[in-house]
């Protein structure tokens, strides 16, 4: 279970899904594991605007990870060289791939390589706990909670 994934999960119960309290789910008794994966700088750049930064920040605090800045970094901070105009986009992409900043690498580490191996995810609205085992979260509900 990647930290990135937590940004797109909420409680599976119908009554919770639409509430703010159910997002993000809160990790509890989490055992973290670093699972290395290839760096794809453009993936990080493209995914960044889609992240609910406050939720990510909150989860990092709860997991005891280093505190993130208050606001999401600007795209320009991800690459050492500025991205050149659209007519040479291909070159820009290639250049960008060669020059990811430390910040981009840190985000890759946090979002894609830092995983919850075991633990629980707790809904802040109803309190239901979802188990994470072998890196896979289980959202199947007992029938009385559906």
């Amino acid at each position, binding site marked *: 279970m990647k930290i990135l994934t937590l940004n797109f999960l909420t409680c599976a119960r119908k009554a919770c899904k639409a509430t703010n309290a159910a997002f993000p789910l809160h990790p509890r008794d989490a055992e973290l594991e670093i699972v290395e994966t290839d760096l794809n700088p453009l993936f990080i750049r493209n995914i960044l605007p889609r992240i609910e930064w406050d939720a990510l920040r909150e989860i990092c605090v709860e997991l005891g990870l280093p505190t993130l800045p208050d606001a999401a970094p600007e795209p320009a901070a991800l690459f050492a060289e500025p991205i050149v105009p659209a007519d040479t986009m291909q070159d820009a992409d290639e250049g960008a791939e060669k020059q990811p900043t430390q910040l981009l690498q840190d985000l890759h580490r946090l979002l894609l390589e830092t995983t919850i191996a075991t633990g629980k995810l707790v809904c802040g609205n109803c309190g239901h706990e979802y188990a994470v085992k072998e890196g896979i*979260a*289980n959202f199947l509900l007992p029938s009385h909670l559906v």
Partner: protein
Amino acid sequence: MATDDDGRGEAYETEYVHTVYEQIASHFSSTRYKPWPIVERFLKSLRDGSIGVDVGCGNGKYLSVNPNVFIIGSANLARIAARHEPHSSVVADNLSLPHPLASFDFAISIAVIHHLSTPLRRIQAVRAILELLKTASGGTGSGSQPAETETGGRALIYVWALEQKDSRRGWDEGHEQDVMVPWVMKSNNKANHKNRQKNKAEHREHSDHLSASVSGMHTQDGPSKACSDSQHSVKEKQDTSCAAHDNDSQQATSDSQESKTFQRYYHLYRKGELEHDIAEAGGIVLDSGYEKDNWWAVATPVVGTSAPASTNLYRTS
């Protein structure tokens, strides 16, 4: 209204879909790795950085098509997709998906909702997918967003067709739409070895644990070893004496051979039915068609409204 579905529903699907898939999961991993062209085209058409869900991702074969989008796969199998970077997967029920509403760019649901055994549950499944998609007005976006019109999220849904006259299964217009499809699993070491080799080539890192539990197995398009027919309608199954249709065991060992037959439930969609269900679920069909024994449709949620609270059941006869 749901009472004329012969007691079908969740418990029925557990017996005739989930349990069977658990048993045959390794077979799927070794044979069903090639994406259908429509699915591949849909996934490759997505903008880089798109976020989506794969509802019923099974072994995750579609997760590897486009590495520039982020997909969260879900399946209600206890053992699901192994790692397909950069994507992720969770265990969840198709009707109770653990995702925020109106926040995804795309969704795919491939060969999944045809396993739901009542009209209402099939429509609910479509609604559960559509409600995850951003609406054209911008979904949950804040007021600070620029006025540029954002298109709504798109879902690709793919189901088995009733009209399959070119296949050996023999179904076509007019046939019973709710069918049990037998899969015969054989202990055949030679076949197993072959599957493993193929598996290694296509899915190098997943082959070992996925293919470990079951030895050789193959689908049975023609008559199965344990039964006289290759398909039986659900209504027929009560009458047959065939061991493979025994409700108590759903997996039967055929006499002398080391083989087991698994019965899986399918609802075969007839022409127009998928589009109908999408409309009932509060969706707009953007595109649809037929591809190799399957109906497919690309849909988006109706702008500015949520799905209707109640629904007219689709009548199959």
